[in-house]
């Protein structure tokens, strides 16, 4: 479309709706589908659910964390593979676990700035397809020889002789450690549990709540409307999440061994698992929605993208982003109807709740006169969270937007706050309100 209103937009973006693939344990039925395949299948299903004329779509913004080295702009690949018109532009966003939310925010910005009328935004990740990489020294040694037209057989022989097996030829495992702090994220969360006095019992209780609520919402069909079926490479139709454990119990969770530290409190049971999956949202300007006869679910009131010192408490970001988003929206916690906080680890969620309820934290760290507000673990994540449902990094933000937007519509509540922490200490807090 011609960008006649570029930079002069005065429209509001609205959330029409969204859909996600089932979230599956890594190396399961989605193993042979990479993040592009998952995203493409997801976008196709989104357009089946909201069958608008594909020509109306201006662009795609896609979030991802584990990006394929050969085609890092997965947004564009997904656009092409999902059968959208080839002229639809696409951007890929990577911002750790907040990637999906950032993608949606950028799509909203494009609409509200007047750059676009209709956008698809979301994210996907395939942890089954993390790439194994050759050492950079291998590249530095081989490239001058292989890229030169003058290289003869002798050059290749010399090159082979110079190769050191351990240094040059051993592939590197995909690194899950933070580049900056060299810590595993679970180690960072374990430290937070210690510093904030979060017990194993409290973590297991939150994990249990997550599983029980997710299981119930799946059983009663509440989540089913958000999940599409996907045909995998082997022709199998996959239509349900497979990480939620309806039958888990505190006793079972208590038996698990600490995963990150001897004598620690974090286990596989109270941490989010490695997951394959994708989630996508359809966004439009209010006018376009009206013109197309679509009823919006919700719209963004505010967001706050932040970062904290990763050497301190890496996953504490939401304790800053939530109050900042509230302030921007001119709201307090009391005005919020539903709270959804990404569960990277139960310890991290509980640490955040503890700080949100702390006067000293509010005064010294946020410049407020008193605590943001007391939130009990029971009050958040009414349909479960990432511990039970799984956490395909780039998809989680979009999953939360879909669930919360639907929740506002179904419950009649006015507003929802969402918050996500991420690697490197990044975070986001965002508030949506029911569409007026």
């Amino acid at each position, binding site marked *: 479309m011609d960008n006649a209103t570029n930079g002069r937009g005065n429209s509001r973006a609205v959330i029409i709706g969204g859909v996600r693939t089932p979230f599956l344990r890594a190396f399961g039925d989605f193993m042979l589908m990479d993040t592009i395949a998952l995203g493409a299948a997801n976008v196709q299903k989104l357009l089946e659910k909201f069958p608008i004329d594909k020509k109306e779509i201006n662009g795609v913004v896609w979030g991802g964390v584990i990006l394929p080295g050969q085609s890092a702009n997965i947004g564009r690949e997904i656009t092409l593979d999902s059968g959208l018109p080839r002229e639809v532009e696409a951007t890929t966003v990577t911002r750790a676990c907040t990637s999906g939310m950032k993608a949606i925010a950028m799509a909203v910005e494009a609409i509200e700035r007047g750059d676009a009328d209709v956008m698809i935004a979301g994210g996907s990740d395939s942890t089954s397809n993390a790439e194994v990489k050759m050492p950079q020294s291998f590249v530095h040694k081989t490239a001058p020889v292989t890229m030169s037209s003058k290289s003869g057989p002798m050059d290749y022989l010399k090159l082979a002789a110079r190769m050191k097996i351990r240094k040059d030829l051993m592939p590197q495992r995909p690194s899950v450690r933070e580049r900056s702090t060299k810590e595993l994220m679970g180690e960072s969360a374990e*430290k*937070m549990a210690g*510093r*904030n*006095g979060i017990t194993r019992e409290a973590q297991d209780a939150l994990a249990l709540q997550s599983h029980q609520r997710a299981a119930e919402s799946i059983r009663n069909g509440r989540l089913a409307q958000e999940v599409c079926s996907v045909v995998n490479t082997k022709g199998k139709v996959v239509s349900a999440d497979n990480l939620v454990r309806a039958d888990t119990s505190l006793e079972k969770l208590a038996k698990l061994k600490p995963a990150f530290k001897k*004598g620690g409190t974090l286990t596989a049971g109270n941490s989010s698992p490695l997951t394959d999956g994708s989630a996508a949202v359809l966004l439009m300007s209010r006018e376009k929605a009206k013109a197309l006869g679509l009823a919006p679910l919700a719209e963004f009131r505010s967001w706050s993208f932040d970062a904290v*010192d990763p*050497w*301190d*408490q890496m996953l504490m970001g939401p304790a800053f982003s939530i109050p900042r988003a509230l302030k921007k929206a001119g709201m307090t916690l009391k005005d919020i109807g539903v709270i959804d906080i990404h569960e990277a680890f139960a310890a991290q969620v509980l*640490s955040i709740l503890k*700080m949100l309820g*702390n006067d*000293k*934290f509010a*005064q*010294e*760290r946020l410049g407020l006169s008193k605590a943001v507000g007391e939130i009990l673990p029971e009050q958040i994540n009414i349909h479960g969270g990432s511990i039970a449902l799984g956490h395909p990094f780039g998809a989680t933000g979009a999953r939360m937007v879909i669930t919360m937007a639907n929740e506002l519509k179904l419950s009649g509540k006015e507003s929802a706050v969402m918050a996500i922490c991420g690697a490197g200490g990044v975070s986001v807090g965002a508030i949506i309100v029911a569409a007026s």
Partner: protein
Amino acid sequence: MSDFFLNLSGNPAAKKLITKLGLPVPMPPILKRAKGPWEDRPVNDLPVIVCHGKGGALASVMAGTLISAGAEIWLAGENQPAEVYAGLGEAWSRKPIALPESGCPESLRPHGLVFDATGFETADDMKIAYRFFHSCIRQLRSCGRIIVITRPPSAISSAGEAAAARGLQGFTRSMGREVGKKGSTANLITVDADADERLEAVLRFFLSTRSAYISGQPIHVSSAVPSPSAKPLFTKPLEGKIALVTGAARGIGAETAAAMAREGAKVIVMDLPKDEEALKQLAARLGGVPLMCDITAPDAPDAVCNLVAEKFGGLDIAIHNAGITRDKTLGKMDDKLWDQALGVNLLSVIRVNEKLIGQIREGGRIVCLSSIAGIAGNFGQTNYSASKAGIIGYVQALSKELAPKGITVNAMAPGFIETRLTAAIPLMTREVARRLCNLSQGGLPSDVAETAVYLSSPGAVGHTGQILRVCGGSFVGA
């Protein structure tokens, strides 16, 4: 220049073999040293055990410091001011943990042991310090830090109190001797009652790995020099400061200039005209200004002052590092050797300062290089010792003069530092000299440079007229 035994000690297989065979080979510990600029939290997540011996006069400043420095705080003993720590730490999720009565748990390997002895009233109170350190000193991790804080003996009225304060000095020095073999240090901080707030920078430095080669020292914190009300910077502490480093072409001088620049200072690097090439390269690397000038030349004070006035309109930091040795036993020493050593090491410092002080701004810092030889004397170094001891007297007097202007004047007295100067010492003498300290190894130029940065930083306003030894807890000199 490299220390064979230190390298050997760094090789785990060799170390194991030597230890197993019980060979009489020195195994100096490998010291941990901070790389890069000052950190916001120098002891991030490191466990530090704190004990307030009697009363909690220092509780709030110590709590505030340790929390902002990122320490995992353990409180030892009864009647500790835990609520002060808990209140200040709450917002940072850094609440103190009470050490079990049974003592230091097996799994706890503290980085620091900090003892507040300011409430001591009688010599008998030292027993409290004994009990604390006795219970946990063996758990101290390698390259750990012991700090004991008292009031200065001079500021105390009762004799018993003075005995305790001085007694702790001997106690701390001996702990330094004991923990040195694992690379740990022990220092005593004496703090005037009206200077408690100034402890923050001091604790940060002496708990950090930047003080790796300072051990067994009494360090005084006073309120003699008025300080600006603003809280000192703990990262990029020298941002916006203009610093002069003499003798900067190589060794300790070059290292100091680099450390100053790293912390944000604009550095004038000064050395002899024959070192022009090295000096210009250094200045280019540090974004500083080279000054080729023989410091003993009659016009040297003018050359320095003119450059400072024209380019910067004032100076904040002067590091008088230029120094030479001209060793000969006294009977064989001719006039020239005496004059050269005294001229560079002492007389030029005095002459340059006479002119330069007028240009040093409020909050300024002057740091002179003394030496262990100036404290203890040394064979064949009557000239050198005279000059370096002269620096001590000079610094002590000048510090009083400049205190009202907000300028501190201190000296550093390096022990055996691995430089060109010490590499020229005959092998056996050098080998012995290296081992004669708690840490049984020579220091590095960076150890002196880090100390120079510390003494030049805004937070070091509590130190003036001090002779801070960077000697690894040398056995010579009191």
